[in-house]
């Protein structure tokens, strides 16, 4: 079995004379019933026992219809993942979805709709598809390897019903020609056709029978090779992603200017190891962010303030060797076995809090999360110890502050031209001892009291770099020392990507070969007539889509005629008769249905 039994090849002429290997296979009796469109032929077969059923099941699974069905199911199954936020790509979206849709979310969750692409149902579809694919490809590969070693099959008895059928007559009828003007022997004529075809890249074989000599030629084996490479490449991609992906990891880390990141598990803000990850996969390197530079549009008024370029200048050490490099968006840094990507950036105001006696209880550059295009940023400072009570600060940072008519602060430009930090102070319990993990970027104010800002007696504390202010209730003081940039880096290690690329290129190459290289057979048959002339028949057969089949036959006919004519001058009376008067010729040009 070369192809699935329900594989539909290019339409073949209704007539019988189709060489083996080209008909739509009806299936081998005893092993498989007619599967055709009915598909249930096997039910009427003699019972074959467990093995028989397994075999039947396997054939069903590796049939074209199953593959088609699974492909369409896969397309359908991928849709919900784009409608509902996914844990893998948008975890915050999922959290928000649960808040917004309190009843619906758990139901969707029970169907794994927040992790569609790793869900049981999605996985089963593609696993079945790939099992089907393997079941389909193995026998085809075997068959194809055989075919590559087999010469083209015997010329069909009747060519008249095949594609582009054309005839030509060589030589004059015996009545008008003497023996000397006899055309070249049919063997010689066929030999010249054989050479022509061979030169055009066809694989050829000549056949002789009682009344004819013929050459049978085939080309385009690469079409099937390409198809197999394509499908095997898909399996390759799946396997490398599925297995190899488990050895990689991805981690995120925010680094403020001046800070150094050491590639250890603890240094990451978040970390997603692959299934087979071990600590030893972390290559030992360090990265210090020397400087982060953002360039914004300052010329064009309409796009004023749009980012033009981000560049992180870093000092790295790897195996004790120091180095300086830059990391940009779309231009990662390779170090160790990993790549470092620049995915985000923002401001990290350096904030110092002192107790009433002037002892520093907190000082750090705190990354603030950008909220809009002009980098209005939001951040949180939590002071657990050292003051009379726990303190939380919610800060807004405006790189270039301005006030609206209503007195609200906004940022009007993303660069730090007129930086202002505005702080709301909360006093009470930070809730850190409840054991529930909390984010450094959010403050739970449930058991805290707001001391400054809207709805309090005091305005928010507003500081420019270098300024200090007293905290309310005599708690101490807060200083905005300066502001630094931070960069958020993604560190990825993926041992598979090279292989995936390799298979992807194989898939692409296989696809192009398989879609655009025509596979066809051509035949030239010489029939010696009683009157001494030779009738030449030309025909072709396409396998798969082949818009140029008829052109190919025509072209062969022309070139062959020219080749014979080139020999003919030695034999001036040998002429080529056009077949338009030949009754058989009236059929030529008929298209295959």
């Amino acid at each position, binding site marked *: 079995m070369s192809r699935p039994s329900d594989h*539909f090849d290019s339409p073949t002429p209704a007539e019988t004379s189709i060489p083996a290997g080209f008909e739509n296979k009806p299936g081998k009796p005893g092993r498989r019933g007619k599967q055709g469109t009915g598909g249930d032929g096997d039910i009427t077969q003699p019972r074959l026992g467990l093995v028989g059923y397994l075999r039947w099941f396997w054939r069903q699974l590796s049939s074209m219809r199953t593959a088609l069905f699974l492909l369409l199911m896969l397309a359908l199954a991928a849709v919900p993942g784009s409608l509902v936020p996914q844990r893998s790509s948008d975890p915050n979206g999922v959290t928000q979805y649960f808040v917004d849709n309190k009843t619906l979310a758990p139901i969707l969750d029970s169907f794994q709709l927040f992790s569609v692409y790793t869900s049981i149902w999605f996985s089963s579809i593609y696993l079945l598809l790939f099992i089907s694919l393997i079941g389909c490809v193995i026998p085809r590969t075997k068959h194809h390897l055989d075919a590559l070693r087999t010469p083209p099959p015997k010329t069909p008895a009747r060519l008249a019903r095949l594609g582009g059928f054309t005839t030509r007559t060589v030589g004059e009828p015996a009545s008008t020609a003497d023996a000397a003007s006899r055309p070249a022997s049919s063997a010689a004529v066929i030999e010249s056709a054989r050479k022509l075809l061979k030169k055009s890249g066809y694989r050829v074989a000549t056949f002789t029978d009682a009344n004819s000599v013929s050459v049978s030629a085939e080309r385009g084996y690469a079409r099937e090779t390409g198809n197999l490479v394509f499908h095997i490449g898909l399996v390759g991609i799946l396997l490398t992603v599925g297995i190899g992906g488990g050895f990689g990891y991805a981690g995120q880390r925010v680094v403020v200017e001046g800070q150094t990141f050491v590639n250890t598990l603890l240094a990451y803000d978040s970390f997603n190891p692959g299934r087979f990850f071990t600590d030893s996969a972390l290559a030992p390197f360090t990265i210090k962010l020397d400087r982060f530079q953002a360039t914004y549009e300052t010329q064009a008024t309409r796009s004023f303030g749009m980012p033009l370029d981000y560049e992180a200048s870093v000092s790295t050490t790897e195996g004790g060797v120091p180095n300086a490099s830059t990391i940009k968006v*779309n231009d990662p840094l390779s170090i160790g076995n990993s790549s470092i990507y620049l995915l985000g950036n923002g401001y990290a105001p350096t904030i110092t809090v002192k107790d009433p006696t002037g002892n520093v209880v907190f000082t750090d550059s705190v990354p603030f999360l950008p909220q809009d295009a002009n980098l209005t940023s939001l951040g949180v400072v939590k002071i657990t110890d050292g003051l009379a009570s726990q303190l939380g600060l919610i800060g807004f940072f405006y790189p270039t502050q301005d006030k609206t008519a209503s007195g609200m602060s906004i940022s009007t430009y993303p660069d730090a031209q007129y930086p202002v930090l505005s702080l709301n102070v909360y006093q009470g319990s930070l809730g850190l001892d409840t054991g529930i993990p909390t984010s450094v970027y959010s403050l739970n104010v449930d058991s805290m009291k707001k001391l400054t800002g809207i709805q309090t007696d005091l305005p928010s504390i507003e500081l420019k770099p270098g300024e200090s202010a007293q905290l309310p209730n005599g708690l101490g003081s807060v200083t905005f020392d300066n502001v630094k940039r931070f960069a958020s880096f993604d560190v990825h290690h993926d041992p598979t990507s090279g292989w995936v*690329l390799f298979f992807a290129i194989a898939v692409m190459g296989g696809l192009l070969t398989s879609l655009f290289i025509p596979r066809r057979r051509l035949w030239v048959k010489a029939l010696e007539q009683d009157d001494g002339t030779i009738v030449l028949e030309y025909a072709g057969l396409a396998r798969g889509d082949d818009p140029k089949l008829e052109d190919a036959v025509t072209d062969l006919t022309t070139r062959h005629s020219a080749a014979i004519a080139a020999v003919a001058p030695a034999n001036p009376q040998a002429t080529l008769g056009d077949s338009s008067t030949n009754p058989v010729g009236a059929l030529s040009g008929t298209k295959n249905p």
Partner: protein
Amino acid sequence: MTQALEQYSVILIYSAMAVYALAFIGFALDLAKRSSAVKSENMAAGSGSSAGVAFVGQNTGSGRSSATALAERPTAVDAATATAAAAKGTGVGTGRGGASASDESGQRSMTLRLGVTMTVLAFVLQLGAVVLRGIAAGRVPWANMYEFSITGSLLIVAVFLVILLREDLRFLGTFITGLVLVLLGISTVNYYVAISPLPPALQSVWLVIHVFVASLGTAFFAMGFALSTAQLLQNRRETGVEGGRGLARFLNFRLLKTLPDSVRLENLAYRINIVGFAFWTFTLMAGAVWAERAWGRYWGWDTKEVWTFIIWTIYAGYIHARATKGWRGSRSAWLAIIGFAAVLFNFGVVNIFFKGLHTYSGL
């Protein structure tokens, strides 16, 4: 300077739209004439066999083909020469037999030629608009929704015109010019944005490659879609009871009679769709390479990635369907149509309403 160029670009787009509208009218008149021409012919000659009609249809128009295939078929030769004569040597003759119809055929070729000429003219105008936009922006003109739309629709027309050089598919002119008009209309009204510099995320050669190839693939899918639709209608006519039903009846089959038969349409659709599929496969891979470069992972099931995958899978299904018994013909045509619907959805809906990393629509 930049602003002036940008203005000229917009003016050119509007001019192109006006000319496309003329082309649309030309093509539409042709379709109308086809109906009436066939009607009068039917009254004169009775309904001809659809196979005969199709036969002539496939061999005229390309000019080169009639030589060998038709040389030995006296009747077909007559028909072909008659039509060709009627078409005044332009290689038109979108095939029906019967010299009685040569009058309509002559008029038809006029409107058809008008349609093609106007399309070429509009194409040149639009090309100018796209190039000016690119020059004004100092980068490739496909970095936001508006720019995708003008470049993508330009490519649709380009693909259409190039295919016209090889196959007489002018009967699709109404669809193509109509589609491009709608796309241009929507994008100038809803998506227009002033030129802005490329954000760092888009500063990559992959923007040039990935987006361009995606648009090219879309252009082929659009043609394939039109052909598959024609195929379905034609198939209804061929298999339907005399008189037919539904849409095919509304067209009263007359127009359809002047088109290639459904098998021929299916083959054409297939050939064009597989080119689109090859481009789409490349788009998907180039996208993955870019994602790996920009975000550190080649695949993350981002919404846009999901839809690119869905489209790819549907068309893979289409190609399979063509090779599966019982699925060739109308069923596979439906898959091509669904595939193109997904392409439009991906462009028009996913880009704008779905949340994801690909928020570069510029809106």
